[in-house]
């Protein structure tokens, strides 16, 4: 249970911030503004993790989502020729609405129905334990994720190589 005025105020403040920013992502017409709002959403979620005393998770959220994924989206926007079209209406809007309502209809009853285990005091989970779990019990998913990322990296390199560069490289090999 959340107790004390500070955490409660923090919870409502973070909720308001996150929800407003999430609304901004959907409503704003400019794609770049939408990404900036998305970053605020990520930061708000990191705040929630902090409130649940999962500080490592909060920091990882900021590093990965704000530092890497948001930057990736920014790159994608800047490098996409049709990004200036902005967040205009599309024919997919009704479909997206239906999908959104379906997901909400699935999640909200599940959340309300679940038996949440509440702890009276925050569990002190040192990072070393997290590391041990990750490399002990959960080593297979961990390795799978790394293999997936490596494959994505190699794939990206293969995709962005232009035929001209490849020719140049072959020429150079032959010259040797």
């Amino acid at each position, binding site marked *: 249970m959340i107790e004390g005025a500070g955490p409660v105020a923090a919870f409502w403040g973070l909720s308001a911030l996150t929800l407003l920013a999430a609304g901004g992502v959907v409503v704003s017409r400019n794609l770049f503004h939408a990404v900036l709002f998305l970053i605020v959403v990520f930061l708000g979620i990191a705040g929630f993790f902090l409130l649940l005393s999962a500080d490592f998770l909060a920091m990882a959220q900021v590093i990965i989502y704000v530092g890497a994924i948001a930057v990736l989206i*920014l790159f994608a926007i800047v490098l996409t020729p049709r990004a200036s079209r902005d967040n205009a209406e599309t024919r997919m809007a009704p479909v997206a609405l239906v999908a959104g309502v379906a997901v909400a209809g699935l999640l909200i009853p599940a959340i309300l129905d679940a038996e949440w285990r509440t702890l009276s005091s925050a569990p002190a989970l040192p990072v070393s334990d997290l590391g041990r779990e990750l490399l002990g019990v959960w080593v297979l998913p961990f390795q799978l994720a790394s293999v997936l990322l490596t494959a994505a990296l190699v794939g990206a390199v293969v995709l962005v190589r232009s035929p001209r560069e490849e020719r140049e490289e072959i020429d150079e090999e032959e010259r040797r």
Partner: protein
Amino acid sequence: MSGAPFLATEHWWDLRDLSNISREILEFLDRVGPDWLAYVVSPLIGFVAAFLLFVLPSQLFVGVYGERRLIGRMQSRLGPNRVGKFGLLQPIADAIKLIQKEAITPRGADKWVMWTAPVVFVAPAVLVWAVIPFGPNMVIADIPVGLVYFLAITALPVLAAFMAGWSGNNKYSLFGAMRVVAMAISYEVALVLGLLGVVLFTSTMSLQAIVEWQREHDIWLVFLQPLAFVIYFISASAELNRTPTDIAEAESEIVAGYLTEYSGMKWGLFYGMDIGYALAAAAFGSTVFLGGWSLFGLEEWVPPWLILVAKTHLFYFVFIWTRGTLPRLRIDQLMALAWKYMLPLAAINLLVVAAERLWWHEAGLGDGIVYLFAAANIALALLLVVGWARVLGYRPERVPTRPRLVKHVGGYVAPGAETGGGR
């Protein structure tokens, strides 16, 4: 070392531990005011102590004045010497000038993003100082993941720089923004791998605990992790956009990079906080690698916070030194340095550290073994730095005697450019 009595007493007038004063204030507030008052006031005290009393004066007098004077000295000129005695009032004059200058917003600019970018840039520069320990009790928030906190917070100004570059509606701004982001991402990888070595040795991520570890083992991590230190220094200077690596605002190439459309105090905030980040990186580097507030026992006599401040400024001096000495690199050279040079070295370093650490703990060796590790790692670092440069085809010259063309020292020459020089 451990267990030695700490000479600082608990009286509020004992300047060796400034936390005494803040504790007195907070206890007084607890007595007279409601119980939430202390919670509100304590971060304010931390902010005033760390930022207003240390960072801002350092920014003004070491960052603006000292840096310009020293670089002037290195480049055989005088530097600012007109305003006040020895030109000491120059930073204040600069600040007054910047504040009254008009902050122009171009008509095609994205006004909101352009106005919020400096704010987003300034806020993390203040937040970073929350985890830097100035003394045994003098840390605003000693969180167990302080090291990761530092990395997370320093990822934010990159976004601010991108916002600044994108919103100006200027192609040079956008070039600068793209360069900032590309470089930050590239150097972050090597930086994190290098710092992982430190975490492996100390098996903690709290900055205070890292300082304590160095104090307990009577060795600084710079000796145990020389390669990680070099990687940290280069990566930090690249992420800070300082001169050998400041291609993001390279004046000779893209006007002023992401700051092209900024003027007045909005530009001033970027400029001032660049120095603030450099100071934070220096403080973080001296905490993690140079023993922080400890100095082989001297911290019991000299105020520990004074030791950290001195180390921070020494570290910052090396930043100034490289800035005054080295020429700016090209963007492809910087990218090659990050991916082909520092990343493999960081990975090898991590492997070596992991092996040493495993051996140390599995074999149950004593603490004296760290000196052996230090000697081995220093030798290995030298070998790797020189050897890897040779593998890549660079031959380090100890005494360069004459200027040479790029291709003669093994640099990249674009295809078709060999026959150039016809101009």
